[in-house]
């Protein structure tokens, strides 16, 4: 049923997950985590990675029972037409809202760092237009671009090596575990929000080629890479800034680069943030893709992308102030608990329950 044109390899799955996960969240992550986990923030991200891994296993187990269906088809199969459709609407809403939130944070960041005078709706328009351009092609092509975009990520990581020159203070993370389990867990909660995107596996699983084996491995590697990347940047920020500084600066990762200065080049943070728009746009493309896939049939996909892009755009140009964004992000977080964590676990338990029920009936 699925033609070769719309399928992706496991190699591409790896990059697809990375690109949909890494985005705007990373830049402000150290600041966010600092509020609770303090010097143990790096443990929080690792813990978050473990939780994500747990969820990936759940997804994988779920798809063992439904290898050719995506998330929304499974809900209908398990819960029936009406409840299933309602749940799918929530899933769709989640993807749209997460995409919008990413876009809002993204243009806010651009506005703050690069282009303070350019109206937000212009920035948003250009980003959404380029997202449409890619998102309305086949999954294969999106995956291909995501692989290219990952070169940028590697380049940015290499760029971070330059910051090793800066003064480092390892005392900041000591004593390990000082903040207490509760605070570390709260930090993990915050980090998971910026790691969202791995749930895309729920929608692209049916398109993976040769999915008999190795899918979990690719997904786990993607998770490992993302966790390592986040932990790395968090750790770098923890030892480069004092706890007080970390609380005050909104995007510590950028400040890290701001301190660098060379004979030919200054303000590397500007180059960094400008280059960071690639991973940010890929996240938006991914969420646009997920949202469109979650409600559309194969034929109407292109139209759905356009429609969803318009919705995301309209949400993003609404003049949000700081507190509203925080509120918005809290709502998205609650929604994500349901869509990313609770619903898949529920689906899996119900599937297993139904299976055992059938087996006992047959016996």
């Amino acid at each position, binding site marked *: 049923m699925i033609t070769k044109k719309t399928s992706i*390899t496991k*190699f*591409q799955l790896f990059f697809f997950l990375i690109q949909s996960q890494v985005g705007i969240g990373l830049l402000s992550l150290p600041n966010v985590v600092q509020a609770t986990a303090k010097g143990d923030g790096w443990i929080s991200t690792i813990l978050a990675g473990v939780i994500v891994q747990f969820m990936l296993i759940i997804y994988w187990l779920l798809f063992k029972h439904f290898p050719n269906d995506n998330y929304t088809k499974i809900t209908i199969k398990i819960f029936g037409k009406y409840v299933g459709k309602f749940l799918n609407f929530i899933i769709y809403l989640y993807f749209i809202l997460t995409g919008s939130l990413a876009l809002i944070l993204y243009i806010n960041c*651009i506005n703050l760092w*690069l*282009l303070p005078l*350019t109206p937000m709706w212009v*920035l948003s328009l*250009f*980003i959404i237009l*380029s997202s449409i*351009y*890619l998102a309305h*092609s086949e999954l*294969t*092509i999106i*995956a*291909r*671009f995501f*692989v*290219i*975009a990952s070169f940028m990520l590697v380049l940015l990581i290499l760029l971070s090596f330059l910051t090793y020159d800066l003064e480092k203070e390892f005392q900041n993370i000591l004593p390990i575990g000082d903040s207490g389990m509760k605070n570390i867990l709260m930090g993990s909660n915050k980090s998971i929000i910026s790691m969202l995107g791995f749930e895309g596996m729920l929608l692209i699983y049916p398109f993976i080629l040769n999915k008999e084996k190795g899918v979990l491995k690719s997904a786990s590697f993607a998770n490992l890479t993302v966790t390592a990347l986040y932990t790395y940047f968090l750790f770098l920020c923890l030892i480069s800034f004092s706890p007080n500084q970390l609380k005050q600066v909104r995007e510590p990762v950028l400040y890290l680069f701001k301190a660098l*200065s*060379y*004979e*030919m*080049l*200054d*303000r590397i943070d*500007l*180059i960094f943030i*400008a*280059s960071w*728009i*690639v991973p940010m*746009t890929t996240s938006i493309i991914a969420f646009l893709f997920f949202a469109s896939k979650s409600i559309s049939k194969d034929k109407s996909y292109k139209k759905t992308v356009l429609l969803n892009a318009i919705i995301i755009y309209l949400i993003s140009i609404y003049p949000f102030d700081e507190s509203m964004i925080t509120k918005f992000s809290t709502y998205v977080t609650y929604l994500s608990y349901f869509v990313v964590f609770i619903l898949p676990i529920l689906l899996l338990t119900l599937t297993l329950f139904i299976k055992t029920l059938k087996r006992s009936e047959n016996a």
Partner: protein
Amino acid sequence: MRFSKDTFSPGQLTSNENRLTVDLKINIEKINDFLCNTEDLIVTKINRSSEKVTILYLDTMVKKDLLYSYVIDPLLNNDSTDLNSLSKMEINKSSRISIIGKRLVDGYCVILKENCTEGFMIEVPDSQGRSINEPNTEQNINGAHDGFIESMSTNIQLLRKRVRNTDFKVEYFTVGKMTNTKVAMVYIDSLANRILVGEIKKRISSIQIDQLQSTGNLEELIEDNPYSPFPQVLNTERPDRATSYLLDGKIALIVDGSPMVSIVPITFFSFYQAPDDYNHRWLIGSFFRIIRVFSFIIAISLPAIYIAIVTFHSEVLPIGILYSIRVSLEFVPFLPLIEAIAMQIILELLKEASIRLPSPIAQTIGIVGGLVIGTAVVEAHLVSNTMIVVIGFTAIASFVAPINEMGTSARLLGFPTMIAASIFGFFGIILSLMLIFMHLSKLQSFGIPYFSPIAPFKKEDLKDTFIRLPFWKLNTRPTDAKPKKLIQQGMSRVWKKNDH
């Protein structure tokens, strides 16, 4: 001895009007009519001892030497009435006026006899053409110095000489209702992908057009994405280059009368390969490869980066450099964008002007344009010094591409990037580069991904893209054209192992 490639509408064939009759006079008249009574149609009557025959030919299309020595002399010296054994040359027969007329146009002579409804056609073409010499557009240092010419058969010969293999296959098409241009599709039968060959055949045979002049026309008719700024067909004048693609399982299209041979399908990185890479040592070849690919990015983004820095992000530069740039900008009244676009356009004008002029005048243009305008424009404070440097550098970078078409595309893409940079700064540059790369990953050339082996990423094909690994490491063909056989060599340096 029937020609299989005659493509006439069936209506013409069945019509009795268009066949030869027994009456010689009427036949001659009919042929004359068919060729619109053109005045270069020569009708010569020859009295043989046995019978009277008439020879028709187009004065402008036949070689007289051949005509006399292979057709007229045997006719006079030989008494046999059977014309089939007349000449050493191949003889075609037809009774259809349309075919006879078409052959006449191709440089045949036609022998008509009294009371005979068939015409005997012998090919005596006069193929005037230039000799083989090195192509001006793709010169190189160490490689072969021959180039394709306007004659299709010579071009095929040049390729065949390099691939002396029975799998070398040629297929002919006739395109253009008015021009009846011959198009040859050349490929290695044991390598080229069947589906690909079928696809190209389908595209060429579906062309309905009056005139086909060159490979450029053909390219536009068969390429996948006509609105893309990137060339999706590689046109080359170098037989060695074409051969190497044939051996990758790609397909060459030769249009009669055009010295450019089109290679399909093609990938982006092929435009940055040069035959010299393989003639130099591999390290040197790789070095130039990297420089060329780098030049693509420079050609697109360097003026844009300059614009972004001076209009938006001057803080990126340390104060020392910023100061010198600012000083040179001090008296310039224009926006950096206007400056850059104006200089780019001046550069394009100079290039256009010097292409078509004879070389002594072109040199003058170079001096006037490059030196006089360049210095005067700075001294008049119309354009800043730095801008001249940037534009000069960009132009050089764009000319680095071994295939000129790609360099021009890159330079052209520089304009939207400049505009984006003047509106959004760095954000605009990255945005437009991102769009370009998105476009590249979407683009397909005959169903083959254009940006392979980067998108989709193929590790094994990287050995001959950014760098060129040693020749003996290139064990497999590039997979982009999906060749039938992947292995292209075994252990070529086995002697090294045996030495120990």
